[in-house]
């Protein structure tokens, strides 16, 4: 995927986070759902009942679609979490 980061915006410190064991760059101040999107992850999980793919929907903590596992803690809203250096993310594949 082409770089989705807006060029004119000055970013925070460059950091590194992992998704299912693969490492990606991100910048301090970015929200996790945005950092995941920039890393090319649109699907964040599959639903328990019907195994349907889900990603970012409301982007403001309301819909609970973007639930991911952060540092071993499941069901965290990616859109309400700031990405941190060495954060480990687990997504459904």
């Amino acid at each position, binding site marked *: 995927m082409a770089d989705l980061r807006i060029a004119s*915006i000055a970013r925070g410190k460059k950091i590194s986070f992992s998704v299912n064991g693969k490492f990606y760059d991100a910048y301090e101040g970015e929200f996790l*759902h945005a950092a995941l999107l920039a890393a090319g992850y649109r699907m964040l999980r599959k639903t328990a009942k019907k195994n349907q793919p889900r990603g970012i*929907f409301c*982007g403001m903590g309301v819909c609970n679609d973007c639930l991911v596992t952060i540092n071993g803690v499941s069901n965290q809203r990616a859109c309400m979490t700031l990405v941190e250096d060495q954060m480990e993310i687990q997504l459904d594949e």
Partner: protein
Amino acid sequence: MNKPYRIVIVGSGLAGMAAADLLSRYGLHVLVADDNAHTGGQLLRKALYTEKGQGRFKTDWVKRHGFKLAERLKQSSIQILNGTQVLGIYPEHSILLETPDGRTSEHRADAIILATGAREKQIPFKGWSLPGVMATGAAQILMKSSGILPGRKTLIGGNSPLMLVLAAEILANRGHVQAVLDQSTIAGKLKSVAAQPSVIPKIIEAVAFFARLVAARVPYKQGLSIVEARGSNQLEEVVVARLDNTGSIIQGTGQIFPTDTLAVGYGFVPNIELSQQAGCAVSYDVDKGGWYVEVSNTMTTSVNNIYAVGEVNGIAGGGKSLVDGQIAAWDLLCKQGIVDLKTCKKQIQPLIRQRNRQLRYGRFLNRFCQLPPHSFASIPDGVTVCRCEEITMGDIRKQLSNGLATMNSIKRATRCGMGNCQARTCGPILSEIISALAEKPPTAIGCTSARAPVKAVSIDSLARMNSDNSDVGNTGNLV
């Protein structure tokens, strides 16, 4: 023992900040709890565009004022808890909070100001839960809070006033907008809305946004509905068409847009759940965005010492939120004997006049986004309505044909609205669906009840409940 008077404000958007600012200037102890990582609510969404060279976003006087407030709050003695969910409000104004350290704790408040804001309204279509389909607000937030474009190319649909704003912001930040597809028509909108002087600036604004679309050669089409979002694990293409009153595609109007991102929105609804749970009376009014919290002229709710300010008592934009917060604060200051009744009245009266003007703008805004009942009645059976519990339109139709026709009965029979989001996404949709199919007004169908915890919380977090009700997590003393 003389305990200090404690005020808890839920929400640090414009309304919450305006109230907190005024109360703290008179020396009152204020605690602000907000689910978000940053202070300022959805309108400010972090200061990416307050510093030079930080992206290109529209700012108006409301936002500029908001940023000033946020800065002043940061310098003040007000305790702001970011990343904190308010799970419930119990009798005697005991408040249950979950702090970002993953602990819950109970706190006493003498007065509570609910400033819980609004969320976007949606209408389900086939594939609307596919990754890549997102709310117009979500697309804006990605850019404003994180400086990341929503996609390589973005198709924008729905009937929200945010559509044009989003398109302009994507273009200004060198992104690609594929097309803007307005479900309604300008002629239809003008017919349904009695134009008023208060909306003229907004119309001028819309024209300016429109001019940017034209300059960037972005197609703008009217009367087109989103029929289906397709893709295997993420969005690949979107089917759009003109629909008749039964939801059938009018022959020859169908079009397919290959795209990775679809941003959709259909206006806004107040976030009433916490107020409802606290026992505040709610009511329904199309002009206010649907179900809203009833307030008096001084922003008091039906529950003693609980105020509701901003979008939660009726959608009308940030200007009204700033005014509401101040009115509630003046009323509280008067009741506490800090300012006399005469001063209080003198302060509140002009604010009420401003508020009435803003409510008229809100009426325009909400009617602008109102979809006709057949849009809801014609949702196909296979379409998911409740995204959390994966309940389809067919599931709901079946229960309606069994004779059920209230929000709570359909909810119990289908589990629609009983998932993680607690009906925040599907609740307003279900209300419109039942209303359209049963041909009854929303007030006859009722509103789903809200119980604590009103936000998803882990058992682990509840188990680690902090029994000392004067401390908040590890952030120090409340007073």
